């Protein structure tokens, strides 16, 4: 069946890559088994599955980052003849016209944006860089992905979302025949994400084969021509576009229904827990921010990339310097991050690889780091308690696989995120700050994380979170603050908020 060209829109969808029985084991334990599929030109193949289902593993194999333990990958040319690919490394894959955008960011931060885009493929004559050409072309690609920075900016000074866009520009600029995107939208806000989807559509129309991973089923439903569903490393089905609907995909993915969140009832006049007055952050000194969060309240910060939400959260947590005044339960928050943690503040950082995780250490160490400080007994670690809380958090957060001794590096992206959130929830903070809490987390797990956050709020803690997904903001927040270029432009109660109204403010419109 795969031999037959499939008509799809105006382009002939021809198979370019055939994958048969691909599997991968880590230290003997299978992460992926028996995936058989084909990748077709002019088609978007979405890969979906829960956290740890094996999506990234599959994509890394396709792009030569890791080698498969079993199976074959064949490249199929225009005549239908197939050549087995020996993809030992990335360069082989690049030669075969395959480009990958990694789930985790991978930029050499000392290079400028143009240098990062063209790293490994710089326009050159006799080894000498053609700088002007590079800048010009880089500017074009940046324009295409909608990133409005100068190509000579150092990557160091870009925000996460901007870096993600640079990575996307980099992949696009290879003009690959097969473009593989691992959760490209997870750190983008709605506007950039929409722009990316538009680009993907254009590429598809021009005959590029695209493999796309996302936990946002709306996106998947919007652009996918076919959907490959993985569960526990096994392929549970390939759905054609017409057979795709949310319920089917979710059933194949999870094997159970996802519970809808119960409605929350807020106490009417709870006391103010977090009070922020005239906060000035380093990169937005012009504006002063004031707001408050009450006990049991969940407040969401909405805004576009670079609106300054991360800075506000980090300033409250004390990890970056700021001017102004913040107090918790009437006691001023001064001092550095560690003092604030003692006073009951916890932060889930935006950049988990850099600021959240100890990648070479165990899940247990990552989960218990803050807890052991809070429950120390004359300076000693309460080791029994530690074991108990780790097991408790693993099951509460549904970290997969539930092995406390596993190195966090070997967990899938979503499970890494759960470990960071677990660490903060374990200490029952009085004020929980979350920055993009469910980045890279699957639908089911997201609901569970939301439930956990709500449970914390129900015990009287204050929660302040930032998210670039309006959907999440609307789902989780009791009250929404909209930020634009370092200012709070408006405020909504959750029940009054609409996506349109929020977007209007977030883009600088007036209330």
């Amino acid at each position, binding site marked *: 069946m795969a031999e037959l060209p499939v008509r799809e829109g105006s382009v002939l969808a021809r198979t370019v890559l055939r994958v048969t029985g691909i599997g991968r*084991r880590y*230290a*003997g*334990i*299978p992460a992926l088994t028996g995936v058989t599929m084909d990748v077709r030109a002019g088609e978007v193949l979405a890969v979906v599955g829960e956290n740890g289902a094996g999506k990234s593993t599959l994509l890394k194999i396709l792009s030569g980052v890791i080698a498969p*333990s079993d199976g074959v990958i064949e490249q199929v040319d225009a005549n239908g003849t197939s050549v087995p690919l020996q993809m030992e490394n990335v360069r082989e894959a690049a030669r075969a016209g395959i480009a990958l955008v990694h789930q985790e960011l991978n930029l050499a931060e000392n290079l400028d944006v143009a240098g990062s885009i063209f790293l490994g493929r710089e326009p050159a004559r006799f080894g000498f860089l053609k700088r002007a050409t590079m800048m010009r072309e880089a500017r074009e690609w940046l324009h295409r992905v909608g990133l409005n920075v100068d190509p000579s900016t150092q990557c160091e000074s870009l925000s996460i979302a901007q870096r993600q866009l640079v990575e996307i520009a980099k992949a696009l600029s290879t003009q690959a025949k097969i473009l593989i995107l691992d959760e490209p939208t997870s750190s983008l806000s709605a506007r950039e994400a929409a722009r990316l989807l538009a680009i993907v559509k254009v590429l598809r129309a021009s005959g590029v084969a695209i493999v796309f991973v996302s936990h946002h089923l709306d996106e998947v439903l919007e652009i996918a021509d076919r959907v490959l569903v993985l569960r526990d490393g096994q392929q549970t089905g390939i759905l054609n576009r017409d057979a795709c609907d949310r319920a089917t995909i979710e059933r194949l993915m999870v094997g159970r229904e996802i519970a809808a969140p119960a409605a929350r009832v807020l106490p009417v006049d709870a006391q103010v827990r977090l009070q922020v007055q005239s906060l000035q952050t380093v990169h937005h000194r012009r504006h002063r921010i004031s707001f408050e969060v009450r006990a049991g309240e969940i407040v969401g910060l909405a805004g576009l990339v670079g609106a300054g939400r991360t800075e506000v959260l980090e300033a409250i*947590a004390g*990890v970056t310097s700021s001017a102004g005044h913040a107090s918790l339960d009437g006691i001023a928050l001064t001092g*550095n*991050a*560690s003092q*604030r*943690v*003692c006073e009951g503040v*916890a*932060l889930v*950082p935006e950049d988990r690889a*850099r*600021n*959240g*995780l*100890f*990648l*070479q*250490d165990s899940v247990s*160490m990552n989960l218990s*780091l*803050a807890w*052991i*400080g809070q429950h*120390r007994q004359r*300076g*000693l*670690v309460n*080791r029994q308690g530690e074991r108990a809380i780790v097991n408790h958090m693993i099951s509460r957060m549904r970290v997969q696989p539930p092995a406390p001794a596993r190195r966090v590096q070997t967990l899938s992206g979503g499970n890494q995120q759960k470990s960071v959130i677990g*660490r*903060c929830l374990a200490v029952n903070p009085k004020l929980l700050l979350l920055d993009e809490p469910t980045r890279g987390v699957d639908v089911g797990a997201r609901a569970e994380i939301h439930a956990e956050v709500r449970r914390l709020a129900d015990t009287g803690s204050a929660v302040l979170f930032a998210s670039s997904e309006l959907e999440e903001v609307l789902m989780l927040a009791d009250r929404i603050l909209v930020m634009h270029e370092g200012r709070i432009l408006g405020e909504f109660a959750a029940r009054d908020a609409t996506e349109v109204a929020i977007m209007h403010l977030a883009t600088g419109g007036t209330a």
Partner: protein
Amino acid sequence: MKKSLGIICLFVAICLITAIYGDGFLTGFNLTNLTQRTALFSILALGAGVVIVAGGIDLSIGSVVCLAGIMTPWLLVEHGWSAWAVIPLVLAMSATIGLFHGVLITRLRLQPFLVTLCGLLLYRGIARWMTGDQSQGFQGEFEDVRSIALARFDVPFLGDYRLPATVIPLVILVVLIGLFFSRTVWGRWLLATGRNENAARYSGVPTAWLTTGAYVVCSLLAGFGGMLFIFDIGSAQPSDFGNFYELYAIAAAVLGGCSLRGGDANVLGIVVGAATLQVLRTAIILVGLGSQLEFAVIGGVLLIGIAADELVRRYSARRAEQTSRMQH
């Protein structure tokens, strides 16, 4: 334990070879000497290890050994101070040096390599200037104070092996540092800081304090070690006392399994690493190779040792992979 298997094998192999091809390796006198030297260098290496765990490096160890070691007889003999004043003073000075490094590194965010390299030059320079380049020694006196390093205890059933007194502080330190890393919150946090300072800071670990503390401990142990060294040797020249000791200390720590990327602690491994270096140096004389070859042999054996360790590790990983694949 598993992490230090490689270095333990290397250690045992060197001991065996020396015992077979050399003279008198297994005599009580030699084993006593080796114990003493291992204890002295281990104390430095433990300090180096603590800083390495914290993700830093301390190149000033040798110079702190020199300054502390030179100051002790200088104050006792030249200036006639009492030992009760000198020992606390020298230790306090060493700790202050560490504090100074720590503050420059954590507050001013200077590079540890550069700060401690300046320290390497500075403290030796101070020692040379203070003493006018004169060697300092106890001139046969202060037997009581020197017995801190020179006392030997008889051990039943071990023939003429006599346990050097320096083993006492070593054992105390190994136990304390071992417990620190495995049982205390700050030990855990120091490990975390070494692994990913940002992540540690974001989760509320007082990274600046801990890192500073690590430098204080390192310099303190270097100063303490320097004092024991001079008690042991009796005199020293400011221009070469302790030269390259930082490299021996760091090498012992790294051999013992502390990666320079930070976050790996292996206290027993450090001691075995220090012992390996000392046995190697002795082996060269006992086997009769000639002192010219000392450097070449130590360098060569270490290189072969670490390369073999890595190859064995890979091979066994591959074996494990294969057997588990067959089971599936």
